[in-house]
């Protein structure tokens, strides 16, 4: 018997509408799961049971009087702790924001909330979303529900783990270089990074503004389309948000992949890719072909330089964005300084963790006089070439396929002392951020140790409908069960 907390939003919505279950029952199911597993998983920095119960009860009352409700209404949502939530502590997993309580809501959260989402809490992540293992959180790591000795991926590791463990039905994350897709792959759930600007960044704590993208974790591709439909569209508070209308992203989801041209990215099975990952992704490609897609191979010649460009552009933007943490208006202030510059310098030295310092220093260097042109300037030109590669690829293909991550979940502590090895986790996810194109990770099987493998589909700008339609077809054909061992044990 599947618990309510292990089901999809699309399964639950008709049961709610038909009065077979209540929003309170779903919320209680998720809260019971939090009680059962959270001590071991540590997906949340703040759990909000009172907020969840109150909201769920109110929604049940509205429903009882016949009020029409959206597909989000009554469905528990976990929110990465980089989204501002009015009146609820928001830390970005950093000591420097330990006690910060925002006076406003991020647009992504306020739209979900306006549609009736039930907030379960704020999820753990890498500090300021910088990392690929969740080990950079100032509040300790998250444990992967498929194997508690391994990382959940990052930076949105808590959101991925919460969905994999049944602590929420779905979750919000942010993706700057793969921070939704990579943890989705490692935790065996669906992760969608939409087109840059499709969802407003207002209230998303900024990391690298030209790359930051709001995304989501779900247990099905259809759910990702449903949640996207609620969050997408122009927001006057984010000048980079696109004029795309809010729409239903699931209308064409059943159309299948027959006739779609799918390009397998060269190097997808190259050096550094674990054999099990290559095997499962290859099988997913064969499945797409069996379903009627035509398969070819596509080269992104500058992808090899994308990682280098990213590790200049993202830290450069971060060094500028994080200048605001100066101990003046909010957040941590180091005590004992007699002048302001000393206070700011001490505040940042004590408030930022090692990875954040590393990136702020890297970006400061790359933007500094004498080095700007050779590093940041050159990286921006490589970004142009990466975009041109995609333009050429999408002239011949509707979708591109690769692994999401070269490896499955690795052991906690395995890569913490080697930042560069950690950065290589993002080699397949970074190019989509540089080009702004949408990409989806979905689970396509398990490796020999029972850890999930993710396959990444990439589409052209604003072609989320094709992405979701192919993802849905592949998901149905593969029949992957996203119930993690931790969720399974909690039921038995």
């Amino acid at each position, binding site marked *: 018997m599947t618990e309510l907390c292990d089901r999809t939003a699309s399964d639950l919505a008709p049961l709610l509408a038909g009065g077979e279950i209540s929003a309170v029952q779903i919320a209680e199911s998720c809260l019971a799961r939090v009680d059962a597993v959270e001590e071991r998983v540590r997906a949340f920095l703040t759990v909000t049971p009172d907020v969840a119960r109150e909201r769920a009860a109110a929604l049940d009352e509205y429903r009882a009087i016949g009020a029409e409700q959206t597909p989000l209404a009554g469905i528990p949502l976990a929110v990465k702790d980089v989204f501002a939530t009015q009146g609820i502590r928001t830390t970005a997993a950093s000591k420097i924001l330990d006690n910060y309580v925002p006076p406003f809501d991020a647009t992504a959260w306020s739209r979900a909330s306006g549609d009736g989402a039930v907030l379960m809490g704020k999820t753990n992540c890498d500090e300021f979303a910088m990392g690929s293992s969740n080990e950079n959180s100032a509040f300790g790591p998250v444990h992967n529900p498929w194997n508690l000795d391994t990382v959940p991926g990052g930076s949105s590791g808590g959101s991925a783990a919460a969905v994999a463990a049944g602590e929420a039905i779905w979750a919000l994350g942010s993706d700057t270089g793969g921070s939704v897709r990579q943890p989705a792959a490692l935790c065996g759930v669906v992760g969608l990074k939409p087109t*840059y600007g499709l969802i407003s960044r207002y209230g998303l704590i900024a990391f690298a503004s030209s790359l930051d993208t709001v995304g989501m974790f779900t247990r099905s591709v259809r759910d990702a389309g449903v949640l996207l439909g609620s969050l997408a569209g122009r927001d006057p508070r984010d000048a980079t948000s696109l004029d795309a209308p809010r729409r239903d992203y699931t209308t064409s989801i059943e159309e299948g992949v027959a006739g779609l041209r799918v390009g397998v990215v060269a190097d997808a099975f190259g050096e550094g890719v674990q054999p099990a990952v290559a095997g499962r992704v290859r099988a997913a490609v064969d499945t797409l072909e069996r379903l009627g897609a035509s398969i070819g191979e596509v080269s992104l010649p500058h992808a090899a330089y994308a990682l280098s460009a990213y590790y200049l552009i993202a830290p450069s933007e971060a060094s500028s964005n994080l200048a605001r943490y100066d101990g003046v208006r909010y957040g941590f202030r180091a005590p004992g300084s007699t002048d302001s510059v000393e206070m700011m310098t001490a505040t940042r030295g004590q408030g930022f963790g090692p990875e954040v*310092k590393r990136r702020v220093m890297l970006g400061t260097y790359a933007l500094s006089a004498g080095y700007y042109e050779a590093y940041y300037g050159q990286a921006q030109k490589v970004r142009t070439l990466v975009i041109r590669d995609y333009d050429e690829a999408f002239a011949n293909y509707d979708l591109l396929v690769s692994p999401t991550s070269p490896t499955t979940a690795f052991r906690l502590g395995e890569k913490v002392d080697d930042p560069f090895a950690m950065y290589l986790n993002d080699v397949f996810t970074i190019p989509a951020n540089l080009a*702004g194109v949408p990409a989806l990770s979905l689970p396509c099987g398990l490796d020999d140790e029972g850890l999930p493998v993710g396959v990444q589909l990439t589409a052209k700008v604003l072609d989320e409908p094709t992405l979701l339609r192919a993802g849905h077809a592949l998901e149905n054909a593969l029949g992957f069960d996203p119930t993690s061992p931790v969720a399974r044990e909690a039921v038995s």
Partner: protein
Amino acid sequence: MPVEIDIEHVARLARVALAEGEKTQLTAQLGQILEHAARVGEVAVADVEPTASAIPRVNVLRPDEPEPSLPVEEALFNAPEREGDRFKVPRIAEIE
């Protein structure tokens, strides 16, 4: 070859106080990361325009309509230190 950087100078620009151990470690790590990042210089790009944003938008303006601003108490709620309706900081100018 790892890139050599003047860690004291960069830390000063970034306004980040670093312990001696951090300086040594960061010098080595940043040198290694920059060595790899410098590969962007291997691509011939003389005639390529730089990209700041993948989906550029220009002259995005909002309607010029007055809206209520954040109330003072809410703005000061998270202040590390305040004095009346103001943020309080240690001195910002040299005193003769």
